[in-house]
Each structure stands twice: as structure tokens, then as C-alpha cells.
């Protein structure tokens, strides 16, 4: 019997990736709809045990999980009182900004005790957590997708999403896809290798455009009913863990993919599709929209087959056609890794293939 190897449960650095720290930036830890008012949710990301809760005011907080009093994990059995998190062990309350607010069997709180509070931002229906190995605060904000606030799209959660949890994947593996048009043919069954027509990295934003002929040579398909169609795949990378795709020329769907490290080895992958509503007030995508989302889920499955088993080639033998964007992406992405900060960070790169 063939012993089929499982995905390597090894850290990215032991798979050849040159950096040990997680990159700095915003990372997707769930959808806003999953964090209801009064609900306490245990999380684990970046090797830290965390607890999320939404207070009665609607504000979402994420903190280190362990109560400084006697060490209970507040994500298991904890509750919410007003805007405070209540420890399940002795009822100590912690305010949203991490201060001890009440000790129920004492007349007063301990003003010296604090819990570490993580920066959180809710945007486009996603809950984003800021990570910086040095503990720094956010240095950029994520943009709102045009139309998101105007009910242009179906509600994203749960029907327009996908998630692949506890996978041996690093954020960089997703990130490098943004500068890699060739994999579209071999991983995603594009007829041709798309042409990358522009790419740039400035500050936290990577932008590239690939010229596509959607459905070329495939006749009339459900996705391209009038045959092959010229368009572009417009890509934005916000830091390393978040990528935004617009499929121009095919439909107006916008997709966000994310990879969020749990620890040095595993990450959670999530996909969020912003699919235009076919009817006003429709809550659940049907027919073509539902098919489109399923199609996009399959594409992530295809990426995962590679990402879960790959080793990372730090000095790849790239042919000239892919060297410029690929190496530009790597130079740009260096700025997010603390170990690379000792060398001059490239904050802006641009070029044409």
C-alpha cells in the first residue's frame, strides 16, 4: 500500500523561508457576523491565546486570553457585562481598553493590573487584527470596498465565504501569487499564461494587473456565455496577509483572500466574495452567483494543494519573463518582516514586464 505523505507540519522557516517572525500588518480573524453582541470567542493567532468579545455598545475587543488574576482562559466560560469581559474563574471584569474594572468581591478594582489589548478594525464585514512582532500600533488602514456600504453585494457571511483552517501555509505563499501570472495556467486552468501589464509596490499596497482572456478556447461557458472575453485581473495586496482581486470583464465580483498565522506552522485561510446582488434585498446568492462562489472556492483548493506541500525557494531560478514582478514583490514584501528591517526597506517598486 502506498504511504501517501501528509502535508509537512513544519514551520515556514524550516521549509526554506528566510524569516522566522510573522510579517507586520492587518490579518483576518473572522467575519463581523460571527462576533455577536455579548458573545465571547476564544482565538489563537501568532502563537498567542486570545479572546474576542463584543460589548453591549457594539465595540469588538480582542485581548490576551489569560486573566492576570489567577490565569483562567477567559475565552472559555467568560461572559460580557456591559462593555466589560468577565473572567469565568472569579468574576473579575476587564474593560475594553484592558484595565481591571471590577473585582466583584472587593470594593474596588486593582488599578495596576492590565490585559494586553490588540488593535482591531472591522472593515467590509471582516474582523482584522493588527500584528507587529515588536508590538507597534497600526501604521495604515484597510480601505472600504466601493459599494460595500450601499448594499450592492450579498451579505458576505456565511454564504459568500470559504475557510480552510489549520493549514500548513505561510502568508507569503498567498502573497507571491500576486506577482505570479504563470501559475494561473498551471494551477487554475487558464488557457494561456496571462500577461502582467503593470506592477507596483508602494507603502503597504502592492498592485498588479494581469491581462486575461477569460474562457479563451473554451467556447461558451456558464462564466463566459458569449465565448472568450478580454479583461483584467486587478490585484491589490495590503501587507502580506490580505489580497483583493477584481475580475474585470467577467463580472463585478470582488474577492478577498487572507492567510492568518496561528503559529509558526499553521495558518487559517479565508475567502470573502463580494458578489453583486441579482435582486434587491436578496440575502443568499443563487444560480450563477452561487456557482461563481463555488468556482472561486475550488480555485483556492487548487492553490492549497501547492502551498501545503511546497518548500520555499529563497533564490529561485526565474526566467526573465517572471523575474521582474516576482523579485519586485519579494523586495517590497521584505519591509513587513522585522528581520529584514536591518537592511534598507524598499518601500516603492514599480515596473513593466
Amino acid at each position: 500500500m502506498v504511504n501517501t505523505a501528509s502535508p509537512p507540519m513544519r514551520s515556514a522557516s524550516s521549509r526554506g523561508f528566510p524569516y522566522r517572525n510573522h510579517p507586520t500588518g492587518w490579518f483576518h480573524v473572522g467575519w463581523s457576523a460571527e462576533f455577536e453582541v455579548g458573545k465571547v470567542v476564544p482565538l489563537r493567532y501568532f502563537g498567542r491565546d486570545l479572546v474576542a468579545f463584543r460589548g453591549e455598545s457594539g465595540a469588538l475587543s480582542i485581548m490576551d486570553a489569560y486573566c492576570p488574576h489567577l490565569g483562567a482562559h477567559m475565552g472559555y466560560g467568560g461572559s460580557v457585562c456591559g462593555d466589560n469581559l468577565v473572567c469565568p474563574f472569579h468574576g473579575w471584569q476587564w474593560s475594553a481598553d484592558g484595565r481591571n474594572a471590577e473585582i466583584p468581591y472587593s470594593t474596588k478594582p486593582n488599578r495596576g493590573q492590565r490585559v494586553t489589548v490588540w488593535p482591531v478594525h472591522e472593515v467590509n464585514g471582516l474582523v482584522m487584527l493588527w500584528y507587529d512582532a515588536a508590538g507597534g500600533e497600526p501604521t495604515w488602514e484597510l480601505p472600504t470596498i466601493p459599494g460595500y456600504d450601499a448594499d450592492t453585494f450579498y451579505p458576505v457571511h456565511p454564504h459568500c465565504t470559504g475557510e480552510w483552517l489549520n493549514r500548513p501555509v505561510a502568508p507569503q505563499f498567498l502573497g507571491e501569487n500576486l506577482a505570479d501570472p504563470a501559475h494561473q495556467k498551471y494551477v487554475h486552468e487558464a488557457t494561456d499564461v496571462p500577461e502582467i501589464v503593470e506592477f507596483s509596490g508602494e507603502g503597504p499596497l502592492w498592485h498588479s494587473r494581469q491581462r486575461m482572456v477569460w474562457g479563451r478556447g473554451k467556447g461558451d461557458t456558464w462564466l463566459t456565455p458569449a465565448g472568450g472575453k478580454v479583461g483584467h485581473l486587478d490585484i491589490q495586496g495590503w501587507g502580506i496577509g490580505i489580497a483583493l482581486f477584481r475580475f474585470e470583464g467577467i463580472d463585478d465580483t470582488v474577492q478577498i483572500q487572507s492567510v492568518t498565522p496561528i503559529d509558526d506552522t499553521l495558518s487559517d485561510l479565508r475567502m470573502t466574495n463580494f458578489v453583486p446582488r441579482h435582486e434587491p434585498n436578496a440575502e443568499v446568492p443563487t444560480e450563477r452567483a452561487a456557482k461563481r462562489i463555488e468556482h472561486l472556492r475550488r480555485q483556492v483548493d487548487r492553490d492549497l494543494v501547492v502551498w501545503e506541500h511546497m518548500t520555499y525557494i529563497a533564490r529561485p531560478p526565474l526566467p526573465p519573463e517572471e523575474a521582474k514582478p516576482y523579485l519586485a514583490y519579494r523586495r517590497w514584501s521584505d519591509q513587513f518582516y522585522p528581520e529584514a528591517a536591518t537592511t534598507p526597506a524598499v518601500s516603492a517598486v514599480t515596473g513593466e514586464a
Partner: protein
Amino acid sequence: MTTHIAQVFTRDPLIGADALARLFSILARHVPGAIPGLRSPGDGGGSARAVRSVHGSPGGEIFWESRAPGRVRGGVHPMFYPTDTHATITLECDAAAAGPDGLAGFVREVSSTFGADFGYVDVLPGADGPDGEPPGFVYLTPQNLRAWLPEMWWGTVLGPAYVDLIGGDVVASAPAHEVTRLGPATYWLQLTEHLESRPTDADPLDLPRRDVAEHLGETLFWKAGRTSFVAPRFPVLGAGQR
């Protein structure tokens, strides 16, 4: 009535009758109303009721307290486990019991006598309740120091662990009202002239606290939204006798 608070984290394990005798003689010099007395009435020798914990002599904790006016709460936590890094001394007195500069003098002398890595003196605001109790208390543990400092206090002792980490020149040049060298690699930083003579604006010490914290290094101090901090690696002395 305001409440004066102080804590000192010493490298001396504070184990044994001699250490405690020296500690309480320092307390008697600076805050005579705060020394613990015996539990039996009429014994004299102190104004506060003392309770020794059941952890055992001579390494056990001592707590003592008295009611307002002249309200005092004190505690001595000797090193207990072999993994302990510090013994702690905690004192909370209403202003009448503390005197204007009593706690500052006590913390400074204790810090140099017993080798402090950290200590603080401050005032809890708004202690105007009918029972004279402040709206909160402060009790830090060595585990807190391994993670962060909560804030700059009106008076702060930075001992060798912090001076090595921050740099002696940086500590010595902090923009505080007073910076005094208490001993080898040990400094007292004081934000205003007197503990009780601060301006009456809301959070009057905000600016000097922020200035000094920024000078020493903001990553030393807890702040909501900051997820990693810089803290000394305190040596484990193995002095606890459990």
C-alpha cells in the same frame, strides 16, 4: 482625603527576622504611623493591626492594616519559591498617616538598603468616600514587571535591571523634576516637587508622565493596542526557601 501608595521590588529576599527588623525601623523613621503593631490591644509599638500569614515563619507574608483616620494597609511578601525574582513591600496610607513625603523617603531608603529593581510612590485620586477608601488600589506583582511597567508614577525607582536595559545615561538624563542616584545603577525619578502639591487640573501629571516615559522608552510601558513590550530579564536567585 487622598491615599498615598507605594511598592518596592527588592532583590533581597527579605527572609529572616533581621531583614524585617531593618525594614520596619526604616518604616518607623519615615512613616511612624504605619508600622504594624501586635495583635493584642495595649501592646503599643504600632498603630496598625498586624497579621502574619500561615505560610510559615520566617519566610511567610505579613499583612497589616488599620482603619481611618490614619488608615494604613501594608504587606511584605518575602521570596517564597526558588523561582522568585523579587520580594515585595506594599504600603497604602491615607495622607494623614503618610505625611507629605513619608512614603517617598521610605521607598528611597528601602530601595538602597535592600537592592530594589523597581519601586513607586503615587497618590490615588478621588478618595473622598465616607469611609475614606480610595476608588481603587494598586498591587503589582513580579509577573507584571516581567511583562511591562503600567505607567510612570510620581516617584519611581529604577534599579540595575532597568538601568542596564535602558542605559544609565538615559535614566540619569530623564526630564523629571528630580533624578537622584540612590546607589549603584539605582535611580529615583520624581515628577514634581511634592507628592501632594500637584496642579489641580484633570490628570495633572499626564504631560510629565508622558515625557519621562517617552524618554525612557515607550515600549517599556503598557498601552492599549500595544501587544509586545520591552522588559528586563530578571535573574532567578533561588533564594526562596519553599
